[in-house]
């Protein structure tokens, strides 16, 4: 798994490439936690992370990977930031549906929509 980090204005975008299974889940968690940390340190008190996870190139994700998304959602929302998912492939979409997490995550099929979604929230 490779993760590319980009910024668009105040929005952080992680382009994830490869399967998120086994030890990759922990690696992804560390990357997200670091972004949460950086936002906190750089911003005013209450600095919040606005995060887009681009899953276009993720073919498979296991329960640990899903757990990382859920944990990220909880932490980011607690800090009044936002997290949205972009470009879910069929497998990842069914995984999220199976786990009844479709109502938890806002999912978008284009980066422009995802950014608009974050700005609206």
């Amino acid at each position, binding site marked *: 798994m490779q993760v590319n980090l980009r910024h668009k204005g105040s929005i952080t975008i992680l382009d994830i490439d490869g*399967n998120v*299974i*086994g*030890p990759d889940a922990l690696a992804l968690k560390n990357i997200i936690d670091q972004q949460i940390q950086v936002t906190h340190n750089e911003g005013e008190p209450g600095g919040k992370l606005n995060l887009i996870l681009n899953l276009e190139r993720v*073919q*498979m994700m*296991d*329960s*640990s990977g*899903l*757990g*990382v998304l*859920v*944990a990220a*959602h*909880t932490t980011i929302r607690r800090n009044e930031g936002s997290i949205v998912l972009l470009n879910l492939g*069929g*497998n990842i979409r069914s*995984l999220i549906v*199976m*786990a*009844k*997490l479709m109502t*938890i995550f806002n999912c978008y099929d284009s980066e422009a929509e995802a950014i608009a979604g974050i700005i609206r929230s």
Partner: protein
Amino acid sequence: MGERTEQVITLSLPSSMQHIDLLKVIVTEIVKETKLPEDIQEQINLAVIEAGTKSTQHSNKEEPEKQWTFQLILTENTLTIVPDDEGEEFAREETEQVITLSLPSSMQHVYLLDVVVTEILKEIDFTEDIQEQINLAVIEAGTNAIKHGNKENPVKKATIQFTLSEDRLVTIIKDEGDGFARQEVADPLDPENLLKSSGRGLFLMEACMDSVTYEDNGTIIKMVKYTRTPEL
């Protein structure tokens, strides 16, 4: 310390030419874990395939039904491959193919499981969606055995046995842990558990496979997937 970093992976597979590819992907994946330079890794891959082809042709002539069992012993900078005559004896039907993999309990080996399953599934008639489901279920079961069963103790082994027949794939995962009671594991779909960051593994296995049964206090998990939905 030297012995601690040594990892022994045992592999048993039918000795036929079609399984050379499986051997190849396993060795390629294992060699990646060494810190050997890439050209050396490539040489190892070639040597293994060569040896595998020779050995297979030989056993095919002598005993076509023979299992081919060996150990891959991995340290930080060496890979030793030795035939393993200690392999478990088991009875199998003539039309079945049995592939067994025994791994030290390191989460790193989840990747190995992924490539092995992908390779094995090429030999049986599943749709792409179903292949993904099986792959996920095996990874979850492997993670369960390595992480929760064996607590990532590298001395303890996780053993995964795949039995392929025309209409189904049976996967049996065994760990050396204390076991667990399935009914005591919380339902991840329960609203109060929805936002928990763990606890979905067993649920996903059961959702992806046609049947999942827990034996020997949960230290043995048997999962079945049919090529066609069974008529109940």
